[in-house]
């Protein structure tokens, strides 16, 4: 798990300048009558990062910062408004690249947040798990498919006999195991996990995370892990990216980011982690609310909440720069006001 990728190797997935805007304008007639302008939610507003083979890259951030949108863009559930997504060096982002997307799609699978919604309630578990096998025509013959399904269920800690049952007969944790088995059935090398544990009890969360790490080691998987739980992120990831209002404000190796956070927002997030020791340490409280992504603040989107903000931050959006392998987008860091 904690095997940092080879610096020289080409990244498995490379995202550059990824943008996704959602049109939330009023209907045409209302726009004309009430003289409203078109409005867009800038869910993802120019994001770039690389994921090396075998890594676990985590995206963290508050609700509504666009983490899930990034996940959905990468697996092709949304079309990017602009920017590029390269998988093994092949461009799969734009609409014109549909053929490439189709060719590369089988290499990726996704695990969803809500284990109660991600399994079709009218299908048996065996049929659910077998779907990617049928879709990719990996195996022919009923017997072979069923045997493979049994194998997959065993691999995620369920029994082959569970294949006969329906999803509602399982608990949340067990359902998430079924989800994982389904994802593995397509024999992917890249798994996008959209908050796979946030709907589960803490004890079950640990089981699922251990299972995922176990599988990563055995099958050499690469993960993109979306979460808002920093403790979980620290536990599983090799690299972490922090998102704020559709932008990546900082990304670095997990240890570096947690021990030496540079961006003021990262510091704020880390300070918000509760600890049981009641250490009484000085915290910077998380101040204010996330502004609306329909009308984000000018310049650096974080400036209204930032203790280090100055005039330049209100006007000019900071570009990401690299400091000892840490990518940060912050004027204060660039000017040396924070180190």
């Amino acid at each position, binding site marked *: 798990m904690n095997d940092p990728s080879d610096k020289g190797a080409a990244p498995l997935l490379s995202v550059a300048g990824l943008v996704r805007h959602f049109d939330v304008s009023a209907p045409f007639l209302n726009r004309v009558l009430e003289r409203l302008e078109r409005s867009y939610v800038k869910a993802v507003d120019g994001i770039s990062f690389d994921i090396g083979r075998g890594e676990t890259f985590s995206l963290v951030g508050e609700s509504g910062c666009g983490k899930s949108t990034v996940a959905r863009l990468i697996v092709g559930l949304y079309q990017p408004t602009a920017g590029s997504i390269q998988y093994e060096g092949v461009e799969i982002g734009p609409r014109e690249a549909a053929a490439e997307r189709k060719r590369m799609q089988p290499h990726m699978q996704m695990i969803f947040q809500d284990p109660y919604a*991600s399994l079709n309630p*009218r299908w048996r578990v065996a049929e659910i798990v077998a779907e990617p096998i049928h879709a990719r025509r990996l195996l022919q013959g009923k017997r072979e498919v069923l045997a493979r399904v049994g194998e997959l269920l065993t691999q995620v800690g369920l029994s082959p006999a569970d294949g006969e049952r329906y999803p509602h007969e399982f608990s949340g944790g067990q359902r998430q195991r079924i989800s994982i088995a389904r994802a593995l059935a397509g024999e992917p090398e890249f798994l996008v996990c959209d908050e796979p544990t946030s709907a589960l009890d803490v004890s079950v969360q640990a089981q699922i995370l251990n299972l995922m790490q176990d599988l990563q080691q055995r099958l050499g998987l690469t993960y993109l892990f979306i979460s808002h739980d920093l403790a979980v992120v620290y536990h599983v990831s090799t690299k972490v990216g922090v998102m704020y209002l559709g932008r990546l404000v900082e990304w670095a190796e997990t240890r570096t980011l947690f021990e030496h956070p540079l961006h003021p927002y990262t510091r704020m997030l880390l300070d918000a982690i509760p600890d049981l020791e009641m250490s009484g340490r000085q915290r910077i409280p998380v101040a204010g609310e996330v502004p609306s992504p329909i009308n984000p603040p000018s310049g650096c989107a974080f400036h209204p909440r930032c203790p280090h903000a100055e005039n330049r931050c209100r006007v000019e959006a900071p570009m990401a720069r690299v400091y000892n392998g840490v990518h940060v987008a912050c004027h204060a860091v660039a000017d040396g006001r924070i180190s």
Partner: protein
Amino acid sequence: MAVEAAAMAERGGEVPDLSLWRRTIDLLQRARDSDIWYSFKRSPITIVAAAVTAVIILSALFASWVAPHNPFDLATIDLMNASIPPAWMADGDTRFLLGTDDQGRGILSTIIFGARISLGVGFASVVFALIVGVGLGLISGYVGGTVDAVIMRIADIQLSFPAILLALLVDGVARGLLPRETHDELAIYVLVFSIGISGWVQYARTVRGSTLVEKNKEYVQAARVIGRPAILIILRHVLPNVMGPVMVIATIHLALAIITEATLSFLGVGVSPTEPSLGTLINVGQDYLFSGEWWIALFPGAVLAILVLAVNLLGDWLRDALNPKLR
């Protein structure tokens, strides 16, 4: 982790059996244990309604055996038997329990054969409306955008016409286009088409709504990530999950379709009088209401009312039983 997996593998080793036989048994077991069966058992009105519906449907299906005689077999009709009152009245004849009409046909037999036409047309037009409505609703909801807008505007336009007017219109156009003999042959199909086409909107709207909900659920998105084509996702994932409300609408629509058919037949634009449905029988009978032969119109009317009431009650019960908010 590994220990746990091994233990689970030991517990149930064999590969699950998904054969058809096994599925059937399973389905029956689930039906017996289901909430629907439970709520059915606890509602006496529903049991009565179901029994009445079953009796009418079965006797219509097996009309040739159930009916005392075949009213359309000219050999068995005797004009001497015309206008006999019901059996319990002074001039009654035990051969004709509910009396006879002006041509000597037993009312009971014509009702049984008429119910066959009424139910047949009703079922066929419901199936027709259901296929058109569910299909368009699924496409509208899943594809969205312009396709959705076009289909839904057509639905809106159609909704502004009363169903009976639309059915009359379709029937009139068919009459104008087809030569007379062909029209008489095709009368039943024209009727099914005109009643069905006036009812698809409700299915389309309901299914579109449920499809919009289902298509954003994660299991549909999972199927998209897996790379299944849209048509398979619609048919195998979305369709089974939107059929619940459709069954309720279909039941209530059946009652409505039977009434519409009766209305059209009563107005004289339905099936041909040589093969009368319940509506035609009432139409024929009303000519004799004032000359004293009330039974010719009354009994078909009563059967129609009972049938529609029973089907409606079943539909109401089904709606409540399938609505989780009312449990």
